[in-house]
């Protein structure tokens, strides 16, 4: 897997999309040494006057103030903040984690921002998973005794994908409760922060399902399947694996211009690319549609239109079932709802011309006409 700035994004050695620039994540400066960052976080609570010796080992005997840590609204961002607060021996109940772009520290709360450190984040996540597994024999076999669809640790990733303002604090609460109680966190679902975290993860899981339902691919001349999709949580990377299984032999790209991220797939490899916003917007418009695309869209629209049944609509029911299941915010990407899909094609592609299809198959050609 590779992604190079200003070149092609490749997955599995195959070019999928032409990129002009890569996202800020790749250009992030190397963070300062861990010790230094831990000391900075601790000094937020206790002031820089606290001596070296009193720092790491002195516990929390000294009276410190509450701390708000700003971080990037990603799993890595929050895990970094939680890791630093832990290493700085701050009592977790006096720490709040906020997203930097919407941080509003309270009165009397010291505020500092932490840079995302993937290595520390991964350490925290591994620790959390191990804590969850420790007294849960089923977790080792991928089964949860409480029948939850995602395991306790995997839930972290789902919570972190939520766009909500309070996501970092909910995830923080979930991690702290998880470290304290292990797998019993499943039974603590009435603690406010844990309840909120579960709510977010269920919402993200639902949004993932929406993505699996409503992403629509278009075939490009290059054979790549392209989709633009704007969910209300950062779920495109979470569902990439589903599409990779579904279309294992194809190449595809899904671009999310609302979270500035794209996933690319070819030959069994999935690549996630963070993009600058302009670039994400540019890439979300498919360029160079294949010749058969307009006709296949027209077929799909015609099929969809033919399905409507009289006597069962909103007028008879009193409520609009379609809008309940298929929210309006996603309609603009749906081929079957766009009147433009009916037109746009000029000729029937060869695959749908009876004679050519027959001769191709009868001559024993292994490659079927598209």
């Amino acid at each position, binding site marked *: 897997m590779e992604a190079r700035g200003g070149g092609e994004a490749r997955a599995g050695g195959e070019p999928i999309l032409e990129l002009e620039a890569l996202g800020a994540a790749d250009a992030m400066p190397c963070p300062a040494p861990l010790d230094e960052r831990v000391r900075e976080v601790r000094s937020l609570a206790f002031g820089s006057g606290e001596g070296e010796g009193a720092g790491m080992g002195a516990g929390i005997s000294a009276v410190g103030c509450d701390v708000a840590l700003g971080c990037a609204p990603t799993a890595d961002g929050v895990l970094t903040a939680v890791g630093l607060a832990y290493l700085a021996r701050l009592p977790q109940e006096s720490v709040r984690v906020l997203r930097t772009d919407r941080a509003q520290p309270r009165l009397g709360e010291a505020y500092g921002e932490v840079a995302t450190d993937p290595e520390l984040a991964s350490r925290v996540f591994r620790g959390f998973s191990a804590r969850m597994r420790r007294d849960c024999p089923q977790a080792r076999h991928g089964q949860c005794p409480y029948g939850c669809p995602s395991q306790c640790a995997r839930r972290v990733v789902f919570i972190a994908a939520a766009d909500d303002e309070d996501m970092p604090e909910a995830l923080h609460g979930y991690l702290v409760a998880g470290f304290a109680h292990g797998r019993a966190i499943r039974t603590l679902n009435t603690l406010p922060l844990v309840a909120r975290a579960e709510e977010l993860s269920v919402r993200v899981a639902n949004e993932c399902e929406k993505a699996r339902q409503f992403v*629509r691919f278009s075939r490009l001349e290059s054979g790549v399947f392209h989709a633009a999709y704007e969910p209300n949580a950062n779920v495109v990377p979470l569902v990439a694996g589903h599409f990779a299984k579904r279309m294992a032999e194809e190449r595809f790209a899904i671009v999310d211009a609302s979270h500035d991220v794209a996933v690319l797939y070819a030959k069994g490899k999935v690549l996630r690319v963070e993009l600058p916003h302009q670039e994400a917007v540019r890439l979300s418009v498919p360029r160079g549609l294949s010749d058969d695309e307009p006709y296949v869209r027209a*077929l799909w629209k*015609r099929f969809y239109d*033919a399905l409507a049944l009289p006597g069962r609509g909103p007028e008879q029911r009193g409520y609009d079932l379609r809008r309940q299941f298929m929210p309006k915010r996603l309609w603009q990407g749906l081929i079957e709802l766009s009147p433009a899909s009916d037109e746009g094609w000029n000729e029937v592609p060869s695959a749908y011309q009876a004679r050519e299809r027959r001769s191709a198959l009868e001559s024993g050609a292994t490659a*079927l006409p598209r």
Partner: protein
Amino acid sequence: MDTLAKLHILADAAKYDAACTSSGAERGPAKGKLGIATNAGCCHSFTQDGRCVTLLKVLMSNACSHDCAYCVNRRGNAVPRATFEPRELAQLTVDFYKRNYIEGLFLSSGVLGSPDATAERMIGCLELLRGPYRFNGYVHAKVIPGTDSELVERLGLLADRLSANVELPSAASLAALCPQKHASDVIAPMAQIHETILMGRALGPGRGGSGPPARRSSAGSALSAEPVDFFSERGGAPTYGTGALGGGSYLSTVRPSHVPKRPQGPRKAGFCPAGQSTQLIVGATPEDDRTILDLSTALYRRFGLKRVFFSAYMPVVEDARLPHPETPVPLRREHRLYQADWLMRFYGFEAAELVSDDAPFLDLDVDPKLAWALSAMERFPVEVNAATKEELLRVPGLGPRGVAKILRARRSHRLTFDDLDRLKIRLKRAGSFITCEGERDSRFPSSPDQIRKEVVANARDSTYNRTQRQLPEQLTLF
């Protein structure tokens, strides 16, 4: 005729089978192939009236030689006719699948000449799809009543699920409305499919070597393994108890203690891995809900059906034997039947608890669980901190998800109404039927009479009921 015009005719002709058929097979990717199948299916779109679009549901042909009274494709009805070429349909399926429009193909057909000739044509299409087009996604095929058993077997090896429609809830109605169909023609393929599935499970892998290759890949097998059905009836008397209907039994939220757990492990049948289902039309003939629910219970038990689908009758052709063409579509009745079906498959209810000789129809204003609770007030309120899972599942307003959350939370502490709020359990309905630590929620009435009055008033005030009252008076025949 080009594909666009054919698709229009053949999708239009297939839509009156209103059931949303999702999936029921779990299959990972296979090398060199397109597609997977997931147990829950995936609804890719929703029609204007809110039915989900999961599969490319079309007829192979609507040039039908039968003359069933209720059917838009009946021989005597003047509608444009079309027939898909097998290759055309296979190409269409693959093109739609790759664009994430559908999960697979739902192939049905009018009777093109004879049932056998129709089945041959359907098999031709599926063989292309599974062969040269290398399609590994989900396929549902309809069995035309009267199809030769050998052809049913071939169809079952290519498709994930087969279904033979019982169409109407009684043999008498079938004889009256579908002169060419006999009840025995419908039952015969159902019995054959059921037996072949059981045999496939008993014999293990390799059954029917000509089946679609690589039904299951090693990827994700731990998760995708479907439990093997060992407690299905095998010729003898039904062994099922409450809540163990064939269809959803292994998914069942409540499993009676005498029903053994299904053994875990990869399932080995190549024939019809997603089982069989059926569909029947509600409201075209005078059968009551009791007959329909008894029939579906019998089908689940006798043939191990996965699902029984109900289609509200929609007048499309005029016929003296049918309800008046302006009869409103019995949407709510269809909905109530599905609710009852769910209660029987997942909540441990039996048909006799929901309908009786005195009240053979389900209440259209009040949902069946609430109606049952109102008739069994002596069983309420239940104590949230002490009730069993079965008892909680019977509380109106609590579903499997809510019950699961309560059971989890109950392990570490005793619950209060505030806790239930935090678990996002909606008390609007459940509030009258539960206590926390022996206390009732003061916002809800406590006397059975008062509960009945308020809850029924709430239900009657639903958007659907209000809309129905506002619609102009319409004719009903039955």
